[in-house]
């Protein structure tokens, strides 16, 4: 008696059962991979949450400048580390035309630095400092407050193109 004949009922195709088993195995494997990836993300020392925001500047006053736009839809989650740590921020934005600033708000662990102006190719700049290595906390998730602004002299996206920043947050020993 072959293994297939023990599973397959009379008149059923043993090959079909093998296929079903393969699909189930693959599904289980995929679930494990997704779970591991999710756990890895959750356990990461730092993670940016809320996706990739877009800030649209659409209005401006004559004799003044376009009205800045604020976005607070994203946040940064970080874990307590073995030593006092800090988070730095930097960006790459080739051909940057407009101004983008970021500020951490609602910081409960550590001290938020003053608003950082994100400039293409900038050195990593302190964003949250003095993150304690002790205490009852494990993770915290302050809000990222992005402010985009532009002057009339800086032009518009139709002529200059959009500014696409890759903003990187790094947690390191202070």
């Amino acid at each position, binding site marked *: 008696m072959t293994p297939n004949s023990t599973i397959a009922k009379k008149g059923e195709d043993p090959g079909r059962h093998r296929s079903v088993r393969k699909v189930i195995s693959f599904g289980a494997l995929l679930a494990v991979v997704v779970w591991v990836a999710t756990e890895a993300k959750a356990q990461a020392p730092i993670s940016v949450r809320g996706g990739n925001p877009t800030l*649209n500047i659409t209005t401006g006053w004559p004799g003044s400048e376009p009205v800045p736009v604020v976005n607070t839809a994203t946040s940064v989650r970080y874990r307590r580390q073995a030593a006092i740590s800090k988070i730095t921020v930097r960006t790459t934005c080739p051909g940057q035309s407009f101004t983008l600033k970021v500020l951490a708000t609602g910081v409960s662990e550590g001290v938020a630095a003053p608003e950082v102006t994100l400039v293409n190719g900038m050195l990593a700049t302190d964003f949250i400092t003095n993150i304690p290595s002790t205490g009852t906390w494990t993770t915290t998730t302050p809000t990222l407050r992005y402010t985009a602004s*532009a002057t009339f*002299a800086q032009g518009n996206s139709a002529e200059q193109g959009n*500014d696409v920043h890759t*903003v990187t947050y790094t947690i390191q020993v202070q």
Partner: protein
Amino acid sequence: MNIKLIEPIFEVSILFTRVLLRRTRTVKSGRSLKKLVVLHALILCHFCLVGRATAQIYGSDFHTVTVTVATITNVQVSSGSVSLSITGAGAVAGQDNIGTVVDQTTNLLWGVNSANRKITARTNLGAPQFALKLVALNPTQGTAMPEVTLSTTATDFLTNIGRSSGTCTLRYTGVALASQGTGTDSHTVTFTVTN
């Protein structure tokens, strides 16, 4: 014991200490042992310096932030209405021009973030009884055109404003001739940002 080390220096140091202890048991010569101790000290110093220079990074993450700026074109006058009254008080006998009145109490403001722009001016009054002239004074951006007599055809008023935010003073001049009689002209003056 599973210890998460803060700096690589300690990992190297502990490793080296283990080797040293193992060698201590086997090395018979005291001189060789001394050499090992000195070597250990040198390596420790080296890693101390290098280790301090590069701070340990626990992790990084990134996302993409996009900034878009729409095409914005704004132009605005500082006041809704200007009134010029020619009374003929200064009229000179024998001259057709019975009076010229000037008003420069209003300003034009603009904000334009497109390149190669200019501002034109025109009136809605097709057949004015009196002449109404206009010129830009002290523009903060661009080049003021010579004074123009307003008509229903848009005429260059301020050129080369480019991408800018600025202001200028509007100087209106009303001219009446004796031959034109008396009356009132009501103009709606329109300023347009254009290529």
